[in-house]
């Protein structure tokens, strides 16, 4: 079998996947479609070797990383590890754990840790017309400017399956992949035919928090409160002499920021669409 490579880039760096497995390469093509190609140095090189019984082993820059993992584990581990490599290495862009969408030229950032509901909100908003940038990490040049997103497929957990079940009619597409635990990878174009945005000026920043049964509640944040929250989502602060403080402060000043507690996604997304328009 011939080995082929795929390059995936984000935040000024690139990783390469080398594999002889056609199914793996097809999955990379489908779910990293909008971040394929080289942009900046190749900082990590993964070699995926197909073993017997449909198992795989993976090396990273020549050292063993995973062994005897199945296809689902291969995709998950590489999705996670490659993001970690790309996130932590950038010295030219601040990387925040956040989702991002665009309404015309207005950039919307949903900032929060796992479990805050940002992926579900992102998918719902994309299905309702906002353009997708990312559901996981954004990058902002240290001198300010447009935010860009790691525009892989959306990852929706089992509890958010109602979203793709509501809008997705053709799950046979290469852009849809469901795992045994109920999680799904959904190419953004399956929910919204508009092209994925590569960059947009930040305008509105929301710190969502999903709380079962909670009343819908919003609170405008001061610039200092926004900076405080943003610094907690900054992934690569250690790469900058001032730990990203000045550029993050600039972002905090530029945007309108809100804290959002919600339990009903429809009410939350209606409010988000209104303030982003």
């Amino acid at each position, binding site marked *: 079998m011939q080995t082929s490579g795929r390059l995936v880039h984000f935040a000024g760096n690139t990783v390469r996947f080398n594999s002889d497995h056609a199914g793996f390469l097809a999955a990379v093509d489908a779910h990293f479609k909008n971040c394929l190609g080289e942009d900046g140095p190749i900082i990590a090189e993964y070699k995926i070797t197909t073993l017997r019984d449909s198992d795989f082993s993976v090396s990273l820059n020549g050292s063993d990383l995973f062994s005897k993992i199945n296809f689902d584990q291969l995709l998950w581990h590489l999705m996670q590890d490659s993001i970690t490599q790309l996130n932590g290495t950038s010295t030219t862009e601040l990387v925040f754990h956040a989702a991002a969408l665009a309404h015309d030229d207005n950039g919307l950032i949903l900032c929060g840790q796992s479990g805050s509901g940002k992926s579900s909100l992102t998918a719902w908003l994309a299905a309702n017309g906002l353009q997708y940038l990312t559901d996981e990490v954004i990058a902002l040049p240290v001198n300010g400017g447009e935010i860009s997103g790691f525009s892989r497929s959306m990852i929706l957990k089992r509890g958010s399956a109602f979203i793709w079940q509501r809008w997705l009619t053709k799950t046979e597409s290469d852009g849809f992949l469901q795992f045994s635990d109920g999680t799904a990878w959904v190419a953004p174009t399956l929910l919204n035919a508009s092209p994925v945005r590569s960059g947009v000026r930040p305008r509105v920043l929301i710190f969502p928090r999903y709380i079962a049964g909670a009343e819908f509640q919003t609170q405008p944040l*001061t610039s*200092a409160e926004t900076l405080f929250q943003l610094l907690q989502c900054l992934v690569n602060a250690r790469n900058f002499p001032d730990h990203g403080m000045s550029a993050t402060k600039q972002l905090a000043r530029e945007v309108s920021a809100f804290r959002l507690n919600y339990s009903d996604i429809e009410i939350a997304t209606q409010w988000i669409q209104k303030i982003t328009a």
Partner: protein
Amino acid sequence: MIVPTPVDGFQIESLDGELVLLHPTRNIIIHSNQTGALIWQLCDGARTVEEITEILGAAYPEARDEIRADVPAVIQTLASRGALESK
């Protein structure tokens, strides 16, 4: 006499009278509102809690009672988060 003293190593950003304090190696991030920012700025390692209370009480006589309650509480909060120590 408690003399609250700023702990070394914090980066401090002021925005519209509020403060954000970041200690990168200890991974501490603190937000302080305008009242807390005023109190923090008076914690210089020389003034006691009582002196800080007096200074602010003289500057804002209409809020003297609130200040008497706020100053120890804010100093306690900043100390518990690692931004102040007592000398």
